[in-house]
């Protein structure tokens, strides 16, 4: 109906009937690359506008209103402006590592983004160790941030990078453990398998421990995007801009875009493992068959984006509502509160699936 799978298979049919095999494969690779790039850029543009508008409404302002209707063209104007700015040639930095850091951040961001499953048919990277892959490849960003701060040869970037490193690696533990909790419940690490296991009820409504895991995951994920109350690495009032002070023009723009899309990726992975990904909302009962039928008529990609943007809005709400933490409070929250809770939660989930569920089944 409104699914994209038909279009994809139509393209494949048309290509393979008119081109030799190697050319079909090549064109499809290029199309996949261009498609991901377009989606990546589109989501970055939407998020930049959304952030400015939401921030403005939280502060009783209107936000950008001049460029296009209701300021809708503002992110395009920003993009063109940032492309026209000079990339300042620095004298004292480590040039090779300076640019390597940029590549690492964007590779980490785009490869994690590629693991999202936007609809039933629009599936990118789907390894059988999907959850593990997501955790592993998203850590590339930390490496990029540390390198960026160190190679700039600037004291503020150095402090920013060190703070970012301590914060990101700490919160990665909690988000990893909450994903582990879901792997115990789902019994597979493949993301499509996890979504398949939620076709009747989302994981969120299957056990009480999923709620704890989701709250911990959202807090940790929020911290991993360096935003909101956890924006120590780029605390503008004390470090000017954190690890990317020395990046100018589009090199700064790429860091900015990467950060925004990471926010969406965190929300998307949260959607896939807790809220059923593209699965429609179903009530698992006899009398609700009509309701389920209506829910099934909504296209699956709409379900995914609605849930993911819901989580993004939650993240924006948190960001504009809380004051910044101090670094000792930040590490206290992770190591003494979230970490023990998530370890215990994981154990309780294991007991739930092995002892309680067979007992009542």
């Amino acid at each position: 109906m409104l699914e994209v799978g038909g279009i994809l298979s139509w393209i494949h049919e048309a290509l393979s009937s008119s081109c030799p095999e190697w050319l079909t494969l090549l064109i499809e690779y290029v199309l996949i690359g261009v498609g991901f790039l377009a989606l990546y850029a589109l989501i970055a543009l939407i998020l930049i506008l959304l952030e400015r508008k939401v921030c403005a409404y939280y502060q009783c302002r209107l936000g950008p209103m001049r460029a296009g209707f209701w300021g809708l063209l503002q992110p395009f104007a920003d993009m063109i402006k940032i492309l026209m700015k000079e990339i300042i040639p620095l004298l004292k930095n480590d040039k090779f590592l300076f640019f390597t850091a940029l590549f690492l951040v964007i590779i980490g961001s785009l490869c994690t983004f590629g693991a999202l499953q936007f609809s039933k048919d629009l599936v990118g990277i789907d390894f059988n160790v999907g959850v593990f892959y997501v955790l592993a490849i998203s850590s590339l960003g930390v490496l990029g941030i540390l390198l960026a701060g160190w190679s700039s040869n600037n004291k503020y970037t150095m402090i920013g990078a060190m703070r970012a490193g301590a914060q990101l690696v700490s919160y990665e533990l909690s988000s990893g453990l909450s994903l582990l909790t879901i792997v115990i419940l789902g019994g597979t690490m493949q993301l499509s398998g996890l979504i398949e296991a939620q076709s009747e009820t989302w994981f969120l409504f299957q056990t009480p421990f999923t709620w704890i895991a989701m709250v911990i995951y959202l807090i940790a994920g929020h911290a991993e995007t360096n935003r909101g109350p956890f924006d120590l690495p780029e605390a503008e009032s004390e470090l000017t801009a954190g690890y990317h002070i020395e990046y100018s023009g589009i090199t700064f723009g790429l860091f900015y875009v990467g950060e925004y899309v990471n926010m969406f990726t965190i929300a998307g992975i949260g959607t896939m493992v807790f809220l059923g990904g593209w699965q429609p909302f179903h009530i698992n009962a006899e009398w609700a068959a009509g309701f389920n039928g209506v829910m099934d008529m909504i296209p699956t990609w709409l379900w995914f984006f609605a849930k993911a943007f819901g989580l993004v809005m939650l993240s924006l709400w948190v960001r504009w509502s809380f004051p910044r933490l101090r670094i000792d409070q930040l590490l206290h929250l992770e190591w003494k509160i979230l970490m023990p809770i998530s370890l215990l939660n994981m154990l309780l989930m294991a007991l739930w699936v092995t002892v309680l569920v067979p007992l009542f089944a």
Partner: protein
Amino acid sequence: MGSSEIFVVVMITAVVMVLAAIIIGWLLAPKSKNAQKGEPYECGIPTRGTSWLQFRPGYYLFALLFLMFDVETVLLFPWATITKTLGPNGILAILFFLLILVLGLAYAWKKGALEWK
């Protein structure tokens, strides 16, 4: 089409995207030379000495702790996928492993390694 191929394509796309952005930015943007522009930006005051110096050890301590627990997570993943089939015996087996790690965390806590000094 396999996931590994898509992964390689996405990775190449990321590299191409960064390269293209830098090249387009370099072509479009104006360029001007100024001796002070290339200096590290520290709010207008000339920077003193190098920034590549010894740093406070608190950050490294947390990096070490992270390493320990991250490896733990890696080892827990294979168990997590088959918890249901292993049953209660699997939990007993993994409890021993977890106990050692929790003791490690408790030791670090007691020693004050989790305090920011």
